[in-house]
């Protein structure tokens, strides 16, 4: 059918986990048709990804080894991705569904006049080899199956932490030094500013502890932070407390915040408004702690505790510390 091209997003030199998930998914799609998987990486030292790219299924690595592309340059990344799709004769382009991936894929799709399935949680080839994907819509209140019947290459961004990363033990990918597309760079990322505590982002966390109005004030968010720290998870929040200014919007889970599907979601003092439930109800295990036994959050919960967050949370933090220390 044609190669499957995968964009690798690097942080600190190595491809991020979501990129390895995309590579492994590409390998699976390509195995069915016997096509090669080609990876594309930007920035100084891009060729150093050859071993890990090869182990996850790429036979070739297009390495755009250029220090001016260490940080995201939307126009150049998108044009280079589009050129790589053409030069490799790619039938399919898979991109990790991260902030960078979703942004660059959309621009590249417009450049290629092709179809892009955003944020898919399942992917396959349907009739005639058309790329099909299942994706959450209305922030997970529903799921849509969509396909790219004709336009090629068909593109998709993959929701992080949904597809497995599988190291097959193959040797390194063949490095193909590749020049960046010659397009103007009229905007670029000039620097990254990290959050003071280098906090774990809810979008990437496998465990999230979220707080809502039941905590009564921003000063009590330490209960959420303590439990999150004990669990090694990220701190989330409901829209109500973000709107009240207790915590920045980056922590908001829900329809106008982040849509998450961690393995464990602990909702503390959150009643469970429909727009919050939309953002977290695909989590594997949901714990709800709330005083009100009629709170809608209990309908979504795997385990519920009807009780005062101020009494339950410190005890739970203690229990979690104990159980993890024993392990």
């Amino acid at each position, binding site marked *: 059918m044609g190669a499957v091209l995968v964009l690798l997003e690097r942080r600190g030199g190595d491809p991020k986990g979501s990129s390895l998930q995309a590579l492994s998914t590409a390998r699976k799609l390509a195995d069915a048709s016997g096509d090669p998987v080609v990876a594309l990486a930007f920035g100084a030292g891009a060729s150093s990804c050859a071993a890990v790219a090869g182990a996850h299924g790429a036979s070739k690595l297009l390495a755009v080894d250029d220090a001016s592309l260490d940080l995201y340059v939307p126009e150049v990344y998108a044009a280079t991705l589009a050129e790589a799709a053409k030069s490799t004769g790619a039938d399919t382009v898979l991109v990790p569904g991260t902030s960078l991936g979703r942004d660059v894929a959309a621009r590249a799709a*417009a450049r290629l006049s092709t179809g892009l399935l955003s944020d898919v949680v399942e992917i396959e080839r349907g009739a005639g080899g058309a790329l099909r994907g299942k994706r959450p819509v*209305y922030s997970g209140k529903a799921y849509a*199956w969509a396909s790219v019947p004709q336009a090629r290459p068909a593109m998709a961004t993959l929701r992080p932490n949904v597809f497995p990363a599988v190291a097959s033990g193959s040797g390194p990918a063949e490095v193909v030094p590749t020049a960046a597309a010659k397009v103007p760079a009229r905007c670029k990322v000039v620097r990254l500013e*990290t959050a003071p505590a280098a906090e774990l982002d809810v979008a990437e966390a496998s465990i999230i502890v979220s707080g809502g109005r039941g905590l009564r004030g921003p000063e009590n968010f330490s209960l959420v932070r303590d439990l999150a720290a004990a669990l090694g998870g990220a701190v989330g929040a409901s829209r109500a407390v973000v709107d009240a200014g207790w915590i920045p919007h980056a922590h908001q889970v829900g329809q106008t915040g982040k849509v998450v599907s961690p393995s464990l979601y602990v909702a503390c003092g959150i009643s469970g408004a429909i727009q919050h439930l939309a953002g977290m109800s695909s989590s594997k295990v*949901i714990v709800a702690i709330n005083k009100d036994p009629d709170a809608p959050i209990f309908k979504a919960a795997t385990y519920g505790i009807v009780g005062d967050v101020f009494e339950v949370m410190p*005890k739970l933090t203690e229990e979690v510390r104990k159980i993890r220390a024993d392990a």
Partner: protein
Amino acid sequence: MKIVVCIKHVPDTEAKIKIGPDGKSPDLAGVKMIISPYDEYALEEALLIKDKDPATEIVVATAGDDGASASLRQALAMGADRAIRVDVPGSGGDALSRARVLAEALRAEAPDLVFTGKTGVGDDEGQVGPMLGELLDRPHVGAAFALAVEGGRFVAQRGIEGAVEVVEGDLPAVIAWDKGDHPPRYASLKGIMAAKKKPLDVRAAGGSAAATVVRESLELPPPRAAGRILKGDAAETAHELARLLREEAKVI
């Protein structure tokens, strides 16, 4: 300064989604429709620029059917100067088709800035902003939460996983907004009255190509299995929960 704000007319975020009779689209009968929240943040940011420099012209644009005019009127009531609706069925098909008809309408406007939301509620694709950048041959910033413009240059900040990107670039540019520091204003009674007299230009969509992405079906998520309420005081329930998370759910 001229700013075009692209908005989308969408179901309220509090709305429950029901599957329509075609099995592909939601049944929107009786559902309240609103300006997509991120588009409303974008509009507010444009209005703040106009508050400082009243010479700024704000044009609000959408691709949609007649129903979408209500959101344009709402934007005019909040303070936009005039509106353009590119007449397409529903909300205009897939993202690329929508971006194309919007880009075509925008070219003649030659704005300094094109604003839109980082994603439209519903399709949740986040494609139109970056696509407008490409189709209009302009730089774009996706998911910006702050912007400063000076002397033909801009500096934007955008939140990514665990960090903030500081993005610098040239005008004209396309900025897709995340939620920033400024909650959208309410339309005043005076604004609502004035909006009735502001121009709302309805245009036919140019010859658009076939959709590249086709919706096959829409389904509701499977219902979650009934959960378990733990009994006992705070110490007992906390102990039992930690044990269940480790031994039964195996997530810690």
